[in-house]
């Protein structure tokens, strides 16, 4: 598959690129890159309510992205945002602010990404809302504690698949337990949609947020899927062009569909690029690749343990192919720089999950995350790279 991705023809520090930073962002196939160039070269115009040909083509190209999202994930509504982070902030402002008040409870977990913590802390501070964090034990969500935390909860926000541990949370149980107490559920699916096909309506969540750039699509665009129920409870977030119906000096009325939440000129070329990525990925057997990558990652994890590393990912079935680890003495940054010198890209740091780092008792980890185009030879290069680091630092 690597031949579909032009970036793999480059060298890094004189070595072929082995890209294992996929949980941060994925590489783009030619068809995505070309679709955007083509858009800018042939159909570029502003969208909506326009009568000229280019504007019609641009509108169609952009709205195709929404159509594909709704089809692929079986969603009632798909609001296009600039990414997972904006999608979650949209829920906090457009739903949270109007449906939560003093004393209400939001349930989060200790393994949330900052993007699914900070918006709620900001909201909670303003409105005296209580936040409960479900603890993580041995790298897994404590489901007993979750049930306790759920009492009187109005909103449950959970990362579907952790960007640090790769662990896939039991979202089916989380949703049914939450629905039983009448709580709305938001899934942070940034790491989930790249690895598995989710039927949003069947799953039964109210909100699902994710980013294009983590599933071979462009930067600057993401989506929030919304259930009928939740959509009807939302008020506009940002104001501006395209989201209004009428504007007078006395006040304004708003659109009734997704456009209500898409103020201003949308991410047009990005929508075109994401549509291309969605079409591309619909021809990929995600399940087969997922099994393959999980097996590679599990091997890698074993090998790292054999070499004395602490590995934080458990890599159970369904988990994403993410290996978070640390060496007992070598600083993650030195480790990653020495891997980079060999063409191997991994990420280090807190991975925007400081509370989880606190729980793990570390300030950061080294993270090798695998995606569709990675193969066993990447794992080999990575491991021999690790060996050279260990030798050099011995």
């Amino acid at each position, binding site marked *: 598959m690597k031949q579909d991705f032009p970036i793999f023809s480059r060298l890094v520090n004189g070595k072929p690129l082995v890209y294992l930073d996929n949980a941060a962002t994925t590489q783009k196939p030619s068809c995505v890159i070309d679709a955007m160039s083509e858009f800018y070269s042939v159909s570029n115009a502003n969208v909506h*309510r*326009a009568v*000229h040909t280019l*504007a*019609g083509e641009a*509108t*169609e190209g952009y*709205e195709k992205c929404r159509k594909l999202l709704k089809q692929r994930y079986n969603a009632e509504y798909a609001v296009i945002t600039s990414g997972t982070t904006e999608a979650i902030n949209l829920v906090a402002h457009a739903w949270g602010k109007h449906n939560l008040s003093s004393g209400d409870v939001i349930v989060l977990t200790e393994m949330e990404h900052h993007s699914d913590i900070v918006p709620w802390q900001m909201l909670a501070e303003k409105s005296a809302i209580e936040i409960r964090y479900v603890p993580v034990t041995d790298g897994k969500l404590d489901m007993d504690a979750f049930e306790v935390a759920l009492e009187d909860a109005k909103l449950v926000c959970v990362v579907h698949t952790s960007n640090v541990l790769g662990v896939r949370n039991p979202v089916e149980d989380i949703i049914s337990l939450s629905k039983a107490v009448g709580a709305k559920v938001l899934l942070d699916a940034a790491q989930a949609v790249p690895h598995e096909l989710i039927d949003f309506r069947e799953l039964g969540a109210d909100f699902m947020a994710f980013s294009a750039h983590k599933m071979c699509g462009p930067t600057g665009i993401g989506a929030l899927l919304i259930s009928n129920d939740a959509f009807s409870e939302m008020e506009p977030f940002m104001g501006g062009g395209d989201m209004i119906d009428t504007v007078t000096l006395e006040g304004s009325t708003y659109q009734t569909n997704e456009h209500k939440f898409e103020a201003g000129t949308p991410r047009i070329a990005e929508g075109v690029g994401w549509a291309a990525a969605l079409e591309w990925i619909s021809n990929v057997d995600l399940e087969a690749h997922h099994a393959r990558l999980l097996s590679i990652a599990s091997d890698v994890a074993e090998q790292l343990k054999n070499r004395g590393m602490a590995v934080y990912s458990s890599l159970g079935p369904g988990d994403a192919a993410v290996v978070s680890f640390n060496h007992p003495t070598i600083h993650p940054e030195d480790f990653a720089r020495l891997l980079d010198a060999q063409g191997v890209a991994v990420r280090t740091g807190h991975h925007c999950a400081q509370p989880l780092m606190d729980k793990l008792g570390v300030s950061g980890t080294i993270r090798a995350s695998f995606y569709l185009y990675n193969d066993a030879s990447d794992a080999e290069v990575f491991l021999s790279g690790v060996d050279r680091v260990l030798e050099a630092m011995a």
Partner: protein
Amino acid sequence: MSWPVAIQELIEEFQDIDEQFERLEVLMEFSEEVEELPVESWNNHNLVKGCQSIAHIEIEMVEGKVWMKAAADVKMVQGLQGILSIAVNGSTPEEVLELTPEFAEEAGILNSLTPSRSNGFRTMFDMVQRNVREAM
């Protein structure tokens, strides 16, 4: 696909045109074909919803046959309404319900309009069928 004669003629008339400007001119000529719904009769019920500009459509049953009256501020929308009139006027309700908006596509009318306007045609088409169904 085979169409009623009036529609078949219309498709052919459009298919003969090479130039987009002329196609639009012919489209506007069809505005003559629709019986105008007078302003006094405009109401929320006969308003075409989701249309960017003003458009109204009303369906009457005259001796068991469908009859359409309409109005719009944009001439090309009037033209689309004229084409719809040709397609439905004098037909039985059953015949109208069997129609699909594809004929306009086949004629190259729809792809000559931007998505929002061709959606407008579908919206009007759906409205006609809904009203016919209600009137049955």
